[in-house]
């Protein structure tokens, strides 16, 4: 039997017995076979001594059971690591950040407690996945959409607490921003409800976010101050229509002017879906094109085009640009998606085109106005998450394909937030590519297109391979850590990272002698004095482990 650090075998044995008395012996896992499932399948340290491994897992079924488990953990000073469905792959999966912790597995708490079509909200427990909620809505014929991430197998609560994102309306695709009201089990075992939920007879817990006084919900985002056992989320009424139009730009420099127009259109509410960038000239598909790009007929590149691409530096050469202009291959391509009344989305698209015509040589592809519900044929042709449909299709990224005959076995996501300007896209690519070149690690893309999951800023998300070769994984980790530093030097920080890099990223958020981290630590010391909840999560360590922080 594995034992958590600084916990005696006798104490751990006693705690396990008490956990069993609360949740039942079937729901306490201590065997290697059972604990294997809680390993991070994409661990950057897979199979190495530094891999984070759980000592046990406990799966309660109710908030009351969570309270009891937390109290037992406090009694024996046992670190526990709550997970919802444990699908945070590329960022740590279900493995604890602090090796030897007991995983508090909340998958069994999978009830959809309330759903309102009239006010478009839902109240769920942590084990409810996007698939579960989608099915629930479909079975009842509700005219509601849920904003889903890609893939859609994870938990609404888990994804929101990790600052996950989706594809529909801005305030809904930011999954934390889409939440309204929480129930939290604190480290002392007390249950707290936030926002209007603090009213015992609350009628608007899922309708008014901030309640009265300080809005504390943000304290539970990417932190370790409590165990969230319920969360409300705002849903999207099924729109009358969806329109997706494509904008194509001929020249490398066009991104600067285009992003400014894009920002104006988004900040004015002209379009309300997620812009999706690609580059036909650089052979970079848009997100929605990836499944077809990988699994469809093998895309081909003219040899002359391929040779120019090879020679281009940081995605540019005058010759490559000239080739694109001569052969009508756009340098950049970006889709805009509009949700709303059919007449309105057509008018909005026309306005967007009008604005973009300021860019010389811009061309457009008008999309079809799609009116939900979708036909089976339509479902095959769309990017499902943009229509609120959870999917597993993005696993084609890592699967064996003609473009990827020898896939890696996992990946660690690198996700810096960069300014929403064209200039930042160019600079970021230079930093990424130059750093990778110094480590002699080829990046898996010719140019990193930014994604627009959140308003006002870009995020660049790319994966570093994890293979069966420990030496290769070590090299990739070194590159990852160097990129964290170089991005920070440019003023860009990661919004989320694998548990194994959380200290590295936290180290860069150092303004005024780490006052932000010290503030978090003050809260940690006050609300979790024994430091039992997710020690080290996002760089927040309890007092007794702070000296060991990397």
């Amino acid at each position, binding site marked *: 039997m594995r034992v958590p650090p600084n916990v005696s075998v006798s104490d751990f044995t006693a705690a396990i017995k008490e956990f069993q008395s609360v949740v039942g012996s079937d729901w306490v896992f201590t065997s290697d076979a059972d604990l294997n499932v809680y390993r991070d399948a994409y661990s950057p340290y897979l199979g190495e001594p530094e891999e984070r491994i759980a000592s046990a897992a406990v799966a309660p079924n109710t908030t009351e059971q969570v309270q009891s488990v937390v109290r037992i953990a406090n009694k024996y000073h046992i670190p526990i690591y709550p997970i919802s469905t444990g699908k945070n792959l590329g960022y740590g999966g279900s493995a604890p950040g602090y090796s030897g912790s007991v995983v508090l597995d909340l998958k069994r708490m999978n009830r959809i407690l309330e759903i309102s079509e009239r006010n478009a909200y839902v109240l769920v427990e942590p084990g409810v996945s996007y698939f579960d909620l989608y099915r629930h809505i479909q079975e009842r014929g509700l005219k509601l959409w849920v904003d889903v991430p890609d893939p859609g197998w994870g938990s609404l609560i888990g994804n929101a607490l990790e600052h996950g994102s989706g594809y529909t309306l801005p305030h809904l695709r930011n999954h934390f921003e889409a939440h309204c009201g929480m129930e939290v089990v604190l480290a002392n075992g007390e249950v707290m409800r936030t926002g209007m939920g603090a009213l015992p007879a609350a009628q608007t817990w899922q309708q008014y976010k901030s309640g009265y006084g300080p809005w504390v919900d943000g304290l539970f985002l990417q932190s370790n101050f409590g165990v969230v056992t319920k969360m409300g989320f705002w849903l999207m009424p099924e729109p009358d229509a969806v329109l997706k139009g494509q904008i194509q730009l001929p020249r490398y420099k066009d991104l600067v002017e285009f992003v400014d127009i894009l920002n104006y259109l988004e900040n004015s509410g002209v379009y309300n879906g997620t812009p999706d960038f690609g580059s036909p000239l650089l052979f970079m598909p848009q997100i929605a094109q990836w499944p077809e790009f990988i699994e469809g007929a093998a895309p081909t590149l003219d040899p002359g085009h391929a040779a120019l691409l090879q020679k281009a530096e940081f995605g540019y050469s005058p010759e490559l640009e000239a080739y694109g202009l001569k052969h009508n291959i756009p340098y950049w391509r970006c889709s805009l998606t509009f949700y709303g009344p059919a007449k309105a989305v057509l008018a909005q698209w026309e306005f967007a085109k009008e604005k973009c015509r300021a860019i010389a040589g811009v061309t457009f592809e008008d999309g079809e106005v799609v009116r939900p519900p979708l036909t089976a044929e339509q479902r095959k042709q769309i990017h499902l998450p943009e229509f609120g449909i959870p999917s597993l299709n993005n696993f084609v990224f890592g699967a064996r394909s003609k473009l990827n005959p020898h*896939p890696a076995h996992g990946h660690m996501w690198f996700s810096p937030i960069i300014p929403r300007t064209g200039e930042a896209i160019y600079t970021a690519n230079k930093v990424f590519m130059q750093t990778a070149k110094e480590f002699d690690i080829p990046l898996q893309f010719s140019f990193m297109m930014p994604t627009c999951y959140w308003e006002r800023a870009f995020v660049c998300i790319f994966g570093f391979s994890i293979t*069966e070769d420990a030496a290769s994984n070590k090299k990739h980790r070194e590159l990852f850590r160097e990129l964290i530093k170089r991005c920070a030097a440019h003023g860009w920080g990661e919004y989320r990272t694998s548990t194994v890099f959380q200290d590295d990223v936290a180290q860069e958020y150092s303004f005024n002698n780490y006052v932000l981290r010290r503030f978090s630590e003050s809260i940690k010391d006050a609300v979790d004095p024994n430091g039992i909840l997710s020690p080290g999560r996002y760089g927040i360590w309890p007092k007794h482990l702070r000296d060991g922080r990397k």
Partner: protein
Amino acid sequence: MAADSGPGYSETLLSRREVVVFGLASLLAPVALRSAAIPDGASLPAASQRAAMFHKIVYDERDAYSRAFGLEALALGGAAEPVRDLTSLWLDELAPMWRENDFAVAGMTRPDVLFCLEQMAWPLGRRVVFRVDHHESASHEFEHRTTGPQSWIDPGSLGRDWPRELARALLRGPGSGPVRSASNSMVTAATLHRNTLISWVIAGRDARSTRGSAG
């Protein structure tokens, strides 16, 4: 598999590379082939009974070995289907049925498909209870490593026609009752190989077979 070809499993249209690999594979096939554990033919009635145990048997039609497995399972009466849309397989079929009933699903797929299914089956109380990893070496020979009830198949008994032999073994079974407890597995980097197929069974795990179904 990268080559998508092998003895008896060639595509109708082979690329030059695939032809080369096919030839190499034929030349390098183990000389001392053992006979299959399950003899041909004679087991159809038993196979039919066994087939009913599996709600579904999935395979990857892009892979010649997997396709051979699936078509053999189909011939033996199994509900074999290619995995074309994993989302639909899970959302429309397996998840709703697994919430209500205890049944087994078998397959021979690439690791990514098993990875997704195993991860999603776990919270419904279903585990990988039988697993054979088929690793293709650089010389295009296959090594078969088993996790699960050894009585179901002796990996050493698998010969040149191993995909079909495996289908017959699964559908005919050891005659020793239902799936039993087996050591668990996880598809991880350490267990994957450049060219890997995995045969597997996901089912309720012994006495705990229904746990987690309701939440």
